[in-house]
């Protein structure tokens, strides 16, 4: 008999390794803030162009989430939309497979 869950096992190992590396680096690396790489990119732009970060104002006025809480709420909403789509379709497929 062949082992059925090779990919599942690999996924689990990858996620565990990823988490362990994160726990290790976050506890040993001093000064690691785990801020977004997007922001690090913006910092480098300011450095390369020799202008302060405040110089870069939106070209098109933009709404910003008033706090990190609201931002994470909206990110969760985005993930929820994706989750509903994925779960709904897999459920639909499983249901129609059973019928057939």
């Amino acid at each position, binding site marked *: 008999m062949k082992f*059925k869950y090779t990919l599942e096992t690999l996924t689990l190992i990858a996620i565990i390794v990823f988490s362990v590396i*994160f726990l290790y680096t976050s506890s040993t690396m001093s000064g690691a803030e785990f801020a*977004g*790489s997007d922001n*690090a990119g913006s910092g480098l732009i300011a450095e*390369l162009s020799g202008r302060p970060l405040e110089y870069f104002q939106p070209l098109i006025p*933009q709404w910003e989430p008033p706090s990190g809480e609201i931002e994470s709420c909206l990110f*969760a909403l985005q993930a929820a939309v994706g989750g509903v789509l994925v779960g709904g379709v*897999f459920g639909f497929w499983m249901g129609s497979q059973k019928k057939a």
Partner: protein
Amino acid sequence: MHIMEGFLPLQWCIAWWIIALPCLMLGMYQLKKVLAADRESLPLLGVTGGFIFILSSLKLPSVTGSCSHPTGTGLSTISFGPWITAVVCAIVLLFQSLFLAHGGLSVLGANIVSMGIIGPVVGYAVYRLLRDTSMNIYLTVFLVTALADMFTYVTTSLELALAYPAETGGFVSSFILFMGIFAVTQLPLAIVEGIVLALVFKYIVALKPDILIRLKIFSEEKINAARDDAS
């Protein structure tokens, strides 16, 4: 991979929009055609697009001490090609620029080009190269996903390096600096994303092999071989 609103000079914003728009129009045309030809491709679009929504909302920590988004574009690229994937990415990126201040309307073109076009195009090229070889389909999905993710960030670095060449060393040294921020952070994320989406593809193969065969995503022999492996 988001270039922040205001961080790209106007002429570059316009240039990337000019590249993005025809790709989006082609994508919408293809989408209409695919859905009209086979209604059952709609659920597949839902699943593959759903993963773009989920994965691009996660900001994962990486070894460099900063966080970054996976893109999740691999499955959609394999199933529907890069242009339809660009349309789904445009929806996600529009949401993020309107409500999350991640990216913005002027830089949306540049962000669509990196996440929705160049990344998926590279992934699609890899898929086409491997599709008719004896390469295992899950390994193919892994490579396509990981490379589409990586090249999204390479493209962002390229876009920023073009707009901000360094005073000494110009474009090349600036590109290396941006790659140092984006690509290095992204490498472990791209690998994990590739493995996870390969696993998801296994479930699609198990549940709905007929749609994959009908859309000629992989040959019947390969799909059947993959199903035999899993049972």
